[in-house]
């Protein structure tokens, strides 16, 4: 009965660090030349994606989650747990940190914490990320932030297309310019800004910093995460398993030809980040291409993907 995928229409967010890559690369109709974020699969009130097909067409994912919980295997969570975004960092994002569930629940009106992870879709040569810091203790974090010695404080890593980063809450981080990222995260919009490069917006005002809250959640010393992706190959597909934990499991499927898959999770989130092909199940046959995002509902079961495509697939 749950035979129809839920295709989603993304919501776009303008940001001072955004650009046009979301149009250039995916052909999305973006609102301006400073479009930073595509909220591709979102039931967060700050940007609700709408269902594009089937009997729920025009309804928001949040509505369907709340009223047709059976489509999601009656997953034990009041709110839709995940949020999938594509980020176009044309300029640097602010240096920031996110709280964990406990802290966010207490200080942000019951919001989720924000643990996230990034798949680098594309980036400039020698592009970098801010990932962690060099302070040894909380005291040193405070001193380094107060003295504004960012060069000494921030830890930078060089990135390449195809890299994957797990960013647990408490990790100081920032995407830098020239980076296009697919982000899988807890459904939360809570960011504590530590440093914004002293930028001003077109009204001449700086964005707010949240130093005290940031101090409350920053890991000191920085804790590095080593992700060791596991690769499994079979006829028609290479599956890369990046991370499996209680927040989310995130995998990449490189489909080349034809391969069968099982949707045996409560539900599954799928984003096509490159190429095109078809999704086949029974008599249903969908043409899918890069920029498409959909949810495979509970008990969707076996299906076939055909074509040349790169997909990021996640489930809670």
């Amino acid at each position, binding site marked *: 009965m749950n035979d129809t995928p839920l295709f989603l229409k993304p919501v776009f967010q303008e940001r001072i660090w955004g650009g046009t890559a979301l149009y250039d690369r995916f052909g999305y109709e973006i609102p301006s030349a400073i479009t930073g974020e595509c909220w591709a699969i979102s039931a967060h009130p700050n940007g609700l994606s709408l269902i594009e097909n089937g009997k729920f067409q025009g309804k928001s994912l949040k509505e369907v989650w709340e009223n047709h919980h059976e489509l999601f295997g009656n997953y034990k969570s009041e709110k839709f747990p995940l949020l999938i975004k594509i980020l176009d960092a044309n300029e640097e994002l602010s240096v920031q940190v996110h709280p964990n569930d406990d802290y966010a629940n207490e200080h942000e009106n019951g919001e989720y914490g924000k643990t996230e992870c990034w798949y680098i879709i594309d980036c400039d040569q020698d592009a970098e990320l801010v990932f962690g810091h060099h302070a040894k*203790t*909380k005291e040193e974090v405070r001193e380094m932030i107060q003295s504004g010695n960012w060069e000494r404080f921030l830890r930078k890593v060089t990135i390449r297309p195809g890299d994957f980063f797990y960013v*647990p*809450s*408490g990790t100081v981080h920032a995407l830098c310019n020239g980076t296009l990222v697919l982000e899988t995260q807890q459904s939360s919009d809570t960011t504590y800004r530590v440093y914004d490069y002293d930028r001003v917006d077109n009204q001449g005002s700086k964005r707010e910093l949240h130093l005290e809250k940031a101090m409350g959640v920053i890991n*000191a*010393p920085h*804790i590095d995460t080593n992700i060791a992706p596991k690769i499994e190959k079979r006829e028609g597909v290479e599956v890369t398993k990046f991370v499996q*934990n*209680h927040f989310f499991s995130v995998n990449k499927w490189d489909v080349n030809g034809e391969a069968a898959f099982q949707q045996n999770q409560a539900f599954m989130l799928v984003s096509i980040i490159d190429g095109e092909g078809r999704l086949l199940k029974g008599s249903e046959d969908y043409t899918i291409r890069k920029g498409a995002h959909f949810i495979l509902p509970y008990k969707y079961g076996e299906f076939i993907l055909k074509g040349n495509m790169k997909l990021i697939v996640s489930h809670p």
Partner: protein
Amino acid sequence: MKAYMVFDFGGTYIKYAVMDDKSKKLECGKIPTPKEGLDIFLDHITEIVKHYSESFEIQGIALSSPGAVDVETGFIGGASAIPFIHGVNMTSLLKERTGLEVSVENDANCAALAEGWLGAAKETDFYICIVIGTGIGGGIVINQSILRGATLHGGEFGYMIMGESCKSPLQSTWSKVASANSLVEEVEMRKSLVRGTLDGEEIFRLAEAGDSIANECIANLYKKLAMGIYNLKYVLDPNKILIGGGISKRPDVIEGINNELAQLKDDISTLDITVEACKFDNDANLIGALFHFLNRK
């Protein structure tokens, strides 16, 4: 010179030493634990014994082994990271190959015996030794002899159920809620980290650097350890309670547990309960295995 050949079987290394009857190490070394199987394993042991037999009058072989060891027969039951040593009679196999007397004792028991012989429980006739590591194990020692129990589970403190849940009590055994492993898991979970990111030492470093989650989890660990120790004190009432395992080397851990134990007092629970750290670290199993060999009759 008369001496004894002592082995400590571990998942990663086999440690060995030639010792005199006071446990002084005359020679020592270690080899990576062979993974191929029992025959290769026995070949390595035999080779080492032969080598030292050239320069010492080896009086016998003392073994410390993981698993449920039957000290009477020399049979090693149970399971461990060296699967092929279980289900065989280790002492008779080695006796056949070397012609020497062989004894075997469980590794946690060896560690406990070592403390009574020459360590922190010297001249204490009744003590328990609680070893905190991946899980929680240990031994109960009365008059220099291990209280083994009917099924060799004596001293398996980690099985105690510490939680209040009637639904899934086995999810809150002492090993699952108060081991070094459980500390790592709790911090990783609360800090949203993937499993395997941290180890115990890093958590103590984070705590020293002012990390509040690490500090809270460590404080909780002390409380849960203190509760189990309190129970054991009132059940067994030993003269001494020793704490072993990697984290017991930190003086702040012993102090932290003792601070919590001092809180567990009222008009009815009046005992002053304290713990001490084990004295021996890496050599505890070797020393205890030798003690067991010398006193096996």
